[in-house]
């Protein structure tokens, strides 16, 4: 009897968490899942009729004669998105690691100040901040203006509406998500290990490679996940900085729910993105388990 009461108490205690996860995660995902198997309504929304068309549409297209043929357009968008997300992760790693390392090597009171500074961009709306990059990158923008004024170039460089501009915007947006977990890992790092490494004939770079980076790896992986997932589905930076020709998955999804009015297709795209992300996380989790739970402190 008491064990039933015990269980009841445990479950009651878990209710708030179950409620939050259920209402804010499970239910919306279920709705997306259901919508992805329905038929698009004429003016948005869905008709309650089962169909796998949305998934077929990912790879195939009906031609004039109503015959399905392979259409790589969305696949290209998917690979472009993956590619840009990977570039974003690498960019954030290259930029975030030195920043995190620098902050972690500061005296304690200054570390907190720097961490506060890292969060400053979040105080302003993302849309506004991304717009500012247009001012920087466009033909008459800051960079081109400066280069022309210095006489280094005659014609403005095409910076805006390129994949590079998208990656830059994404790196700018997500680099704090990389800095913070790497900082957390480096902050726990015992400086005496660095001394031990130097003592054993490793110079600064070798120490960085063989001691600091491996020990910061959990933070780097956590940061990479935190950057990769939103970068894959991002649509503000791709929309504003990539122009029309560099469509990414996030923009594509957004398009389906707005002007294209194809909710089932947007839902199907979302499910596919989620599946890809889950596969990546699964691979990571398996890797961590294999390595005995990562680094122990």
């Amino acid at each position, binding site marked *: 009897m008491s064990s039933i009461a015990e269980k009841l108490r445990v479950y009651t205690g878990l209710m708030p968490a179950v409620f939050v996860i259920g209402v804010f995660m499970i239910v919306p995902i279920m709705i997306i899942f259901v919508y992805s198997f329905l038929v698009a309504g004429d003016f948005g929304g869905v008709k309650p009729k089962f169909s796998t068309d949305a998934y077929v549409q990912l790879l195939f297209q009906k031609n004039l004669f109503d015959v399905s043929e392979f259409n790589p357009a969305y696949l290209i968008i998917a690979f472009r998105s993956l590619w840009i997300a990977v570039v974003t992760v690498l960019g954030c790693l290259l930029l975030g690691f030195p920043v995190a390392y620098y902050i972690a090597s500061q005296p304690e009171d200054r570390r907190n100040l720097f961490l506060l500074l890292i969060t400053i961009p979040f105080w302003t709306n993302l849309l506004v901040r991304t717009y500012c990059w247009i001012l920087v990158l466009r033909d008459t923008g800051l960079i081109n203006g400066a280069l022309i004024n210095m006489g280094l170039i005659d014609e403005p460089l095409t910076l805006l509406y390129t994949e590079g501009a998208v990656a830059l915007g994404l790196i700018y947006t997500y680099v704090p998500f990389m800095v913070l977990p790497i900082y957390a890992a480096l902050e726990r790092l015992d400086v005496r290990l660095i*001394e*031990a490494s*130097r*003592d*054993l*004939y490793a110079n600064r770079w070798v120490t960085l490679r063989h001691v600091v980076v*491996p020990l910061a790896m959990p933070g780097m992986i956590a940061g990479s996940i935190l950057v990769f997932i939103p970068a894959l589905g991002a649509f503000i930076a791709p929309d504003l900085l990539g122009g029309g020709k560099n469509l990414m998955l996030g923009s594509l999804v957004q398009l389906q729910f707005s002007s294209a009015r194809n909710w089932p297709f947007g839902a199907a795209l979302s499910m596919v993105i989620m599946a890809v992300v889950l596969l990546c996380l699964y691979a990571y989790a398996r890797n961590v388990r294999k390595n005995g739970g990562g680094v*122990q402190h």
Partner: protein
Amino acid sequence: MTSAVKIQALNKVYPGDVTALKSADLEIGDNEFFTLLGPSGCGKTTLLRLIAGFEEPTAGVLSLFGDDISTLPPEKRPVNTVFQHYSLFPHMSVFENVAFGLRRLGRSDKDAKARVEAMLDLVHLTDFAGRKPSQLSGGQQQRVALARALAPEPKVLLLDEPLSALDLKLRQSMRAELKRLQKDTGITFVFVTHDQEEALAMSDRIAVMSAGEIQQVGDPSAIYEHPENRFVAEFIGDANFLNATVAETTPSGTTYALDAGGTLTGPDQGRAKGEAVTLFFRPEKATLSQVGEGPNQLRCTVKDILYLGNSTDYWLALDHVTTLIVRSKNQTDGTVIADIGEQISLSLDPAALRILAT
């Protein structure tokens, strides 16, 4: 004696004008087990870190087998360190930890493997090569740290209180182990500790340090029997101090009149009559008896008796302010020499009486 480490007028001042080392001069011989002994904050760890290269001297010269290494970074110095908390790389196996230095020196895989195996054999950890440091006990980690530091065959091995984190029994067995390792490898050991017993048991020579200064350098018995000043006398073992003036000097010995009353005779140490001196003797050098006989008798009252197992400490009041401690070996039958409150005679061999520089 070839000097392995030679420091000349070495100074270390930390930001904020904290002097950690005041113009130290020291020579450490090749193949010597040398100990830097002192309380925390005395500068012994700073001196070790200066030799390792983790700190840069503010002034002075530091040379290793004749080469000035004052400005070399730690990775360029042929010295290795056993750290106080071992500082093993947590992401590497025991094998990789020990191989770390060898790989940095560019040894071939085959060479490194043979050397690591020899080192693990030396510290009896052959079966643990594949483990991670977190899977080892404190004593085992300690031995891995030793193997790791010895593997690249350093010219000097620095040990920063390596035994302080171990429990008593393990610490005692590691003392013998370290001494054996030093003799077997022939490497100069510079050992830092605050534990005087450890220092006396292991060292060929000891430098006693206090407040950033080297107080005395000598072999363990010289440090114990002939301390040069009050700090050394007090820090190593227990000590009795008596203020006195020189009463009479003869070629055979000097007689001192104690401020607390009574006289003591000791060997002639070239002091002039009337000079104020501090006398010193070790608690175990004096004997107690009910009726005093022979030279150097002091009548005292027993204030306290501390039973220590193999010996007993008698706390004796010479007058209202002067307390002396006499350590007496315990008899098998458990007889007590005196009880608290009793009057007793302390007698001291004149040869055991020392004068300290104040």
